[in-house]
């Protein structure tokens, strides 16, 4: 083997190793980019929920109606909640009754159904890992939690009416925790 052949062999071996290393790096880089892209798509999907929440006229109208209804009743509700003479059970019973009365009186059923369904879809999207949980939490967790904590008596009311304990179970489980224990017997 002369010097030229030796050099050729060296180049061949080096070339083979180099291409193998580049292939591996390219593969890892490709996987990384794929995961990043997947995450970006998740964020984008979550942002479409934010847009719907802010711009959809039906959603906006439902939110406005709920907001106005609570505003009109806020003094009574606060007085009830601040009543230190009531035991926890009595307080919950009275609060439940007040909220169900408010929903019926202000005809909030359709608005609540719309908003609960919106959150239900968001929860499914997050649970199926189609939406980004951090984005969903950042934009919706506070609203969803306070809305469910305010209107859970209505959820319990329709569960009783429909004989179905699974009504809005996904949002209760996601934002409150245990689904089965929110309604009093």
């Amino acid at each position, binding site marked *: 083997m002369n010097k030229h052949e030796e050099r050729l062999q060296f180049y061949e071996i080096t070339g083979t190793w180099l291409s193998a290393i580049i292939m591996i790096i*390219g593969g890892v880089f490709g996987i990384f980019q794929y995961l990043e892209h997947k995450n970006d798509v998740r964020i984008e999907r979550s942002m479409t929920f934010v847009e719907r929440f802010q711009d959809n006229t039906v959603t906006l109208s439902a939110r406005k109606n709920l*907001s106005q209804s609570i505003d009109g009743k806020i003094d009574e509700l606060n007085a009830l*909640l601040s009543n230190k003479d009531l035991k926890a*059970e009595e307080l*919950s019973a009275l609060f439940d009754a007040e909220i169900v009365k408010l929903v019926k009186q202000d005809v909030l059923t359709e608005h609540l159904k719309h908003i609960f369904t919106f959150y239900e879809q968001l929860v499914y999207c997050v649970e199926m890992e189609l939406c980004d949980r951090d984005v969903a939490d950042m934009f919706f967790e506070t609203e969803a939690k*306070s809305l469910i*904590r305010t209107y859970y008596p209505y959820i319990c009311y329709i569960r009783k009416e429909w004989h179905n304990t699974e009504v809005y179970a996904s949002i209760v489980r996601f934002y409150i925790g245990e689904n089965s224990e929110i309604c009093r017997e």
Partner: protein
Amino acid sequence: MKLRRLFILLPLSLIACNSNTVVDDVPPQIQSGNDSSSSEKMDADGVKDRGYDPCKINPQLEICKKNP
């Protein structure tokens, strides 16, 4: 040798293609790290449903004990 060049050029071109497809379409709210636009807009719309939470007033309410 042509085959060797192909082995080197193929992954290189793959990398080049990959780097061109870097997704830069992250929504502006996330890019800027500013989520206050949502609450501002809600206030502008007259909808302030971020706030009312009975548990903030009385944590003794049964629902509040489930997830404080």
